[in-house]
């Protein structure tokens, strides 16, 4: 299956500077009952975005008109807790294409990459600086260049490299699907099974 390619992303950002945001906050369990992958965006951060009666909570960052864009800038250990891929589907469905933090929970990061959502890890001090800058100047545009593995804010002279596994990078740049990759290895898999059968 072909997937959307990820090359260069230029966008304003949404700041959410809290540590340990778990996937139950990203998408609460009571909204997991769909058997499809789409439509989860409307319940992204549901209980922070809306009150119990379903009214918009104005102060929450997703409800503030000055903060828009396809990059979410957040705190440490983002996406911890439940393995639900629905969290990634909700973030992507809302329109985000990258999440920037100084650390991600392992399962979340894997799920994100499998859906073309790029988790970008940068050093803590730069993350702090970047977050403050976005809060003060919401019009700040960040560039995420996957080929060069660089996150930069041209106007501010910020340029910082970020790590990506080379295999994952190639898949994202080419829009390749790694299930296709494994399906292409069926003979090797069957040979492994034969070697290891009792």
């Amino acid at each position: 299956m072909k997937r959307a390619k990820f090359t260069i992303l230029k966008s304003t950002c949404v700041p959410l500077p809290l540590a340990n945001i778990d996937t139950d906050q990203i998408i609460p369990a009571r909204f997991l009952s769909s058997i499809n992958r789409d439509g989860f965006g409307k319940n992204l951060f549901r209980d922070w975005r809306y009150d119990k009666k379903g009214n918009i909570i104005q102060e929450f960052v997703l409800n503030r008109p000055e903060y828009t864009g396809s990059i979410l800038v957040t705190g440490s250990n983002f996406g911890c807790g439940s393995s639900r891929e629905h969290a990634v589907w909700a973030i992507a469905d809302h329109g985000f294409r990258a999440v920037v933090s100084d650390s991600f929970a392992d399962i979340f990061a894997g799920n994100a990459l499998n859906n073309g959502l790029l988790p970008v890890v940068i050093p803590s001090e730069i993350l702090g600086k970047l977050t403050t800058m976005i809060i003060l100047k919401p019009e700040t545009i960040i560039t995420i260049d996957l080929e060069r593995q660089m996150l930069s804010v041209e106007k501010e002279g910020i340029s910082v490299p970020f790590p990506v596994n080379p295999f994952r990078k190639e898949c994202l740049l080419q829009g390749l699907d790694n299930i296709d990759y494994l399906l292409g290895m069926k003979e090797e898999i069957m040979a492994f099974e034969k070697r290891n059968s009792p």
Partner: protein
Amino acid sequence: MEPRTLFDKVWDSHMVKSVEGGPDVLYIDRHYIHEVTSPQAFNGLRQRGIGVFRPERTTATADHNIPTADQHLPIRDTVSRAQVEALAENCKANGIEHFGIGHPNNGIVHVTGPELGYTLPGMTVVCGDSHTSTHGAFGTIAFGIGTSEVEMVLATQCLLQARPARMRITVNGSLRRGVTSKDLILYIISSLSTGGATGYFVEYAGDAIAQLSMEARMTVCNMSIEMGARGGLIAPDEVTFGYLSGIPSFSSDPDAVRLLEKWFSLRTDPGALFDKELEFDASAVPPMITYGTNPGMGMAVDGTIPSEEEAVTDDSGSHRKSLDYMGFSPGMKLLGHPVDYVFLGSCTNGRIEDLRAFAGMVKGRKKAPGVTVLIVPGSQQVARQAEKEGLAEIFSRAGFEMRQPGCSSCLAMNDDKIPPGKYAVSTSNRNFEGRQGPGARTILAGPLTAAAAALTGMITDPRELIRNGYQ
């Protein structure tokens, strides 16, 4: 040959291929699926026009969203019903073994797999659920995966995975009376923080671990994910073999003796290197509770809530937000704090031993007025055993609600929700905001502390009750 860790031995023996500059192709021995994270994976297979590669290696159970009352009736919630039905249909169409609602083998996926003898030492085990780490108690590499990876395993029986770093946590000494393995793991997580083991796979070792039963070991491995670890595992030993010998499907297997011999080599070689080593003293572990909204925010049951400066686990914004949500403040003690609900169950503490421990403390007594106590066995087998041993009778006389198996109030996808603002002492694994229902306030604890809360209606030190002749 270089000395290797248990983890590396199991990993290496399942490596189909090491991809240049990329993740390894890892063969998966056992795949568990459930109704919430599998429908989209089957849809993916249909879109590709392919089937399930090795259906005999996948087992399904409905657990996450199912009601825990009147399971013989159709599920009222139409969306949940659609998920449960989709699971049944997908399994039927692909020849996958399926334990639906009411089936004698139904229950929480991490309770049923081990009790049926499906999880065996040296295996690789995955499931679209982060608490798959539970199965590590048998010396397996077991971890949670996302739905795209569920699809990958269904399609190829393999996963693309980068090898995590290795951590060993050695626990010496013995746990004191009134302290359970749940307290031990909450203690370890509070020391490491909720993200402290991210990127690692943990091996638990030491005499305190060796002394634990299989059920208690499963509780420890289960919560490895709550400190960010991919999983946790324990080398199989006599306790493991004893547990497996009690499972009919295994003890009648003509291959059993050969397997037991093979499993004796499943241990870390002396001198094998870990990327990180930590040590704990079991005798220093008190009964634990959590005071915040992640499992790393734990303290002794008689402890004092730390201030922002004292809390090592969070940035200050999160700490404040968390305490506000809980209605607590720094410097507060929780001993004597009123409790509205008590929940015994989940893949962490829904096994027969947990029900026995709880029953041991409450036997012949009644719940405190004003407290709702929900007992949800982890599986049909646990429910039958509880009935047989008279535990169900003890619970019903105490005024508790004995329910049918399922994940229930742990993630409250069904009707078992804690109302907004109410306090629940819960033997489950997560105290995240809204985890047990919108606005619900969760205090995680072990089964003894939960039993003490059920009897007194407040946070109570179980050691105090034990000193007074309870248990």
